[in-house]
């Protein structure tokens, strides 16, 4: 499809046709106080040669390490076919074209993606994706406030065991829109949210409760009890889930007696490389009763005049090109390319393959943690089982140890001391299916050496 920019003449002609003097006038409704003249912190433009070099240098900084960091983004094996197919000309665009129905292949792919995500989450409907897991949680909170008409408070309960980045992003997106996020403390022994911790809100109006499973520490929340507490008082449940884990764990739609209302999360584990933190994509699914409050696009399956199967954008009346400032969000299909990769990834692995990946992650992380805690000065922070991450407590500050490990080519985990100072010298470690027994042994030896040297020093 050719991209034809309009010329100065075209622009003048279009403005004249609608009787507007200049393009600026089209943005009149934005109060002047909100406009900035220039982007002061954006560096000067670089030419193609310079930018290629910069990107190569940056990419090299990421390469060659043995990675044991999770904390929201996970290094999984990506079958070669995923990006070979995704980057074919037929797929290689983030966008659904205008007059989307002309591009049936793109719509069918999104429809297949939605169907897979609905199946994984155990919910009725999935949208065509959002920006990333963190913004998906912010959108889910806004959606819950629109959908829960019995609640007036706009209060969203968010356990401290939810990814701290997600909590900050949700606050940025929704904090100025009449929502308030209140933190639910976790149990110091289990590293999970105890249902008893919710009691102080028993008699309060709560719009929604967020539950992350597995939680940020890698542990398992009692999702049934937390969900039942919320549903009994008319509070909506927002599940934040890891898609890989859903191959093994109870899907949000089946949590407790009634299930979660909304499920969201980060889609990166499904065939998207780490690539320094993005681009990734967010997913969002819900029960059908809430679909009109769901942000983003939805592709539906239909029949044409001759009765042949076809695909069409549906429920567009909620979207910004029709509903303007009252749209459910300004999200369209920006992450479509990542969704393409994820759909191909899921198709190649199937339910059984994804289950094998998840099981290998659990096994490897259990092995890793088992070895590391045999080192003097290393112990588990919390009791209980875990998925593919776990928190270790060390006997000295984590930062210098990670630095020493990095010098040995190992990314040793995520330092929790900034986000959770109460945990002391705490490190979140992860071993996906890509870590071999040798990799784990290498990490064990390196941490053992680094700690011993630190002790002598």
């Amino acid at each position, binding site marked *: 499809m050719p991209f034809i920019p309009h010329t100065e003449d075209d622009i003048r002609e279009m403005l004249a046709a609608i009787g507007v003097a200049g393009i600026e006038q089209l943005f009149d409704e934005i109060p002047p106080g909100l406009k900035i003249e220039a982007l002061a912190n954006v560096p000067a433009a670089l030419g193609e040669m310079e930018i290629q070099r910069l990107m190569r240098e940056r990419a090299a900084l990421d390469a060659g390490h043995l990675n044991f960091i999770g904390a929201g983004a996970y290094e999984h094996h990506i079958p070669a076919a995923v990006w070979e197919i995704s980057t074919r000309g037929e797929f290689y665009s983030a966008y659904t074209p205008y007059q989307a129905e002309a591009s049936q292949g793109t719509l069918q792919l999104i429809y297949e993606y939605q169907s897979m995500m609905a199946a994984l989450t155990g919910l009725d409907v999935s949208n065509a994706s959002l920006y990333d897991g963190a913004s998906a949680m912010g959108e889910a909170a806004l959606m819950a406030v629109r959908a829960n008409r*019995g609640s007036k408070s706009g209060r969203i309960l968010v356990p401290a065991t939810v990814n701290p980045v997600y909590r900050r992003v949700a606050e940025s997106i929704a904090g100025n829109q009449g929502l308030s996020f209140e933190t639910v403390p976790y149990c110091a022994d289990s590293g999970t949210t105890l249902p008893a911790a919710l009691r102080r809100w028993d008699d309060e109006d709560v719009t929604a409760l967020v539950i992350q499973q597995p939680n940020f520490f890698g542990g398992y929340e009692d999702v049934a009890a937390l969900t039942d507490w919320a549903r009994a008082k008319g509070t909506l449940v927002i599940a934040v889930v890891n898609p890989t884990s859903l191959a093994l764990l109870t899907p949000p739609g089946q949590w407790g007696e009634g299930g979660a209302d909304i499920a969201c999360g980060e889609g990166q584990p499904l065939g998207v490389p780490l690539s320094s933190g993005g681009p990734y994509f967010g997913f969002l699914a819900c029960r059908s009763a809430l679909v*009109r409050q769901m942000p983003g696009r939805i592709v539906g399956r239909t029949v044409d005049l001759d009765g042949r199967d076809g695909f069409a954008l549906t429920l567009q*009346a*909620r979207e910004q090109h*029709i*509903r303007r400032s009252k749209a459910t969000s300004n999200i369209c299909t920006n992450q479509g390319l990542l969704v393409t990769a994820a759909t191909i990834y899921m198709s190649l692995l199937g339910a059984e393959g994804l289950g094998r990946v998840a099981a290998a992650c659990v096994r490897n992380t259990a092995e890793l943690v088992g070895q590391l805690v045999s080192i003097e000065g290393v112990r588990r922070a919390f009791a209980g089982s875990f998925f593919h991450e776990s928190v270790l407590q060390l006997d000295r500050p984590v930062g210098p140890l990670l630095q020493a490990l990095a010098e040995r080519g190992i990314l040793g985990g995520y330092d929790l001391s900034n986000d959770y100072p109460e945990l002391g010298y705490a490190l979140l470690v992860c071993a996906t299916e890509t870590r071999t027994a040798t990799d784990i042994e290498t990490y064990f030896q390196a941490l053992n050496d680094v700690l011993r040297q630190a002790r002598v020093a």
Partner: protein
Amino acid sequence: MSNIPADLKYARTHEWLRMEADGTVTVGISDHAQDALGDLVFVETPEAGRSVKAGEACAVVESVKAASDVYSPIDGEVIEGNAALADQPELLNTDPYGAGWIMKIRPAGPESPALLDAKAYAATLED
């Protein structure tokens, strides 16, 4: 020519009002409005107990081509939304002045002088 019953009051934004014997006011959208929207697929009615101001958006009517706000024509408190519309939004198309009513409001204060009678409303449609 759309149907504009003479016994109702109208807002310029195409809502109609019927003053009931019990002092409440029933509100819907006009035949002209339903015709302009086309086949309705969803109606979001306000919850009972909500206080509304004249001109405040308090319901949404969604057709296959657009979603539009319905504005309260008066100050007052919503006492009922039409629950039948949840399963049968098409009632708004088939019977806009009867079974397709949207909400009942208990008025607070005097009627707004901005409301139109049938003749004045018909005149706005001719512009």
